[in-house]
């Protein structure tokens, strides 16, 4: 392997890890909702799209940077998630005769409505936020003059990745160190036992849906300096989050992080060595391979 080939490989892996960090944030929200409510939220990508439009609007009208917009979009999405859970999903969950699949179909409907509302308000044009740092990058030779390899790290990608890690760390602290966070985990593990401990399970469901929505809304803001935005962007991200949730193991936060990183690196490798357009194909090869060979997801491998 020549040094150029090595550079390409390392560069690809680095990009993959950055992409994976954002994917992880996307999937953690879905897996939290999955764990507590036992439903796949198929409006997840659309909620991310809402977060992106909030950041886009803040940038266009008030010149607010997308990274600052995280702190506005996340609380707004939290509220939206709570309302969706309270007034749409909960009433359907309460009816015994309706199959769990119907709640999932309801989330598909919510996703469609959100995408169409975005089209009404923002039209279907492609949007972007022309931030000044969009094409800036760090080069390894800036820090280490005699480096045998030349690698570059895109500024927006690295800042987004840093934010994703920070948000994940705060979430981890919340879930493991606070009573409220523990109550959410307890509800996911055993609904009735949590009730006996005095946990208001209904409130935990609203809180979890809000939390999952705010995480994916934050992910949307972090993607905005990197991706084009249009109303139908959500669907592909719902699929990505779904693939990662299966890959990591349903309901597992650690699994979502590992799954996100694996998928990010795999997609990046596919894009470099097979072709840009093949990344979604790689995604589904992983999806099917996981279902066949490790149906419990990555976390099930550690339990053996």
């Amino acid at each position, binding site marked *: 392997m020549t040094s150029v080939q090595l550079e390409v490989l390392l560069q690809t892996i680095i990009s993959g890890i950055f992409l994976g960090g954002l994917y992880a944030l996307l999937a953690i929200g879905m897996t939290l909702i999955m764990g507590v409510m036992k439903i796949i939220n198929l409006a997840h990508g659309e909620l991310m799209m809402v977060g992106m439009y909030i950041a886009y609007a803040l940038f266009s009208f008030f010149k607010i940077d997308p990274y600052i917009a995280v702190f506005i979009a996340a609380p707004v999405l939290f509220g939206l998630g709570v309302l969706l859970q309270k007034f749409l999903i909960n009433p359907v969950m309460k009816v015994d005769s309706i199959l769990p699949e119907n709640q999932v179909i309801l989330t598909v409907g919510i996703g469609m409505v959100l995408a169409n509302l975005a089209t009404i308000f923002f039209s279907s044009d492609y949007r972007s936020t022309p931030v000044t740092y969009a094409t800036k990058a760090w080069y390894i030779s800036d820090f280490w003059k005699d480096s045998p390899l030349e690698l570059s790290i895109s500024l927006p990608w690295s800042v987004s990745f840093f934010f994703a890690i920070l948000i994940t760390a705060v979430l981890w602290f919340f879930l493991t160190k606070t009573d409220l966070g523990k*109550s959410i985990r307890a509800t996911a593990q055993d609904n009735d036992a949590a*009730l006996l401990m005095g946990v208001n399970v209904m409130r935990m469901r609203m809180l979890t849906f809000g939390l999952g929505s705010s995480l994916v809304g934050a992910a949307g803001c972090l993607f905005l300096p990197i991706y084009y935005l249009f109303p139908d962007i959500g669907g592909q991200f719902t699929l990505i989050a779904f693939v990662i949730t299966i890959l990591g193991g349903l309901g597992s936060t650690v699994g979502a992080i590992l799954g996100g990183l694996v998928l990010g690196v795999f997609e990046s490798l596919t894009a470099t060595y097979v072709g840009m357009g093949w990344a979604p194909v790689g995604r589904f090869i992983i999806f099917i391979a996981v279902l066949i060979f490790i149906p419990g997801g990555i976390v099930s491998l550690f339990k053996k």
Partner: protein
Amino acid sequence: MFYGDVQVVWDVSFSVGRGEIAALIGANGAGKSTILKTISGIVKPAGGKIIFDGKEIQHIEPYELIETGLAHVPEARRLFVEMTAEENLDMGSLKGNAKKMRADSKAMVFELFPRLKERRNQLAGTLSGGEQQMLAIGRGLMSKPTLIMFDEPSLGLAPILVRDIFAVIKKVRAEGTTVLIVEQNVKQTLAIADRAYVLATGKLVMEGTGASLLDDEHVKTAYLGV
């Protein structure tokens, strides 16, 4: 009381005196667990009253009951298996006074079950059956209850551990907590019970002190196999 669409408990009326160990015994499927689940609000009664400490509690939301001083150690332990032993204990003391007393209560539980102290950082799902039962009892005690309900605490345990669990239950009562226990292990339960009720296919058929039921011919043939 109904369970799903099938009525499994009919016109059951019984009481537990302060400071007592009261027992509900009966065969599998007699409705014992359903009664406990109804008291703690997991199953909604079709009618009737549940009075605890002078107040009707059948309308209280299940997640608010623990604050009235009622704890329920459920059948099959129902631990939070992906959480550590210590986190499970934390979950038992989420509300009000119990939360303030958490450190003290934990010390008390660890004194009662030194094994749990050794395993405090282990995931509950990886503990042995006996340790899991200790943890379930400990988690119940963390709420500082005035009445604690045990549903089949001896289920699936080796005889020596069963003896330990019953010793702990006596100790819990000795420290001032009223106990309501549901068991299929009739002999050992009656031996520690002040008052006992026999349930058969959803109806109360007998009641008396633990000792008197232990001598009863019907109980002997039906439940003790003597």
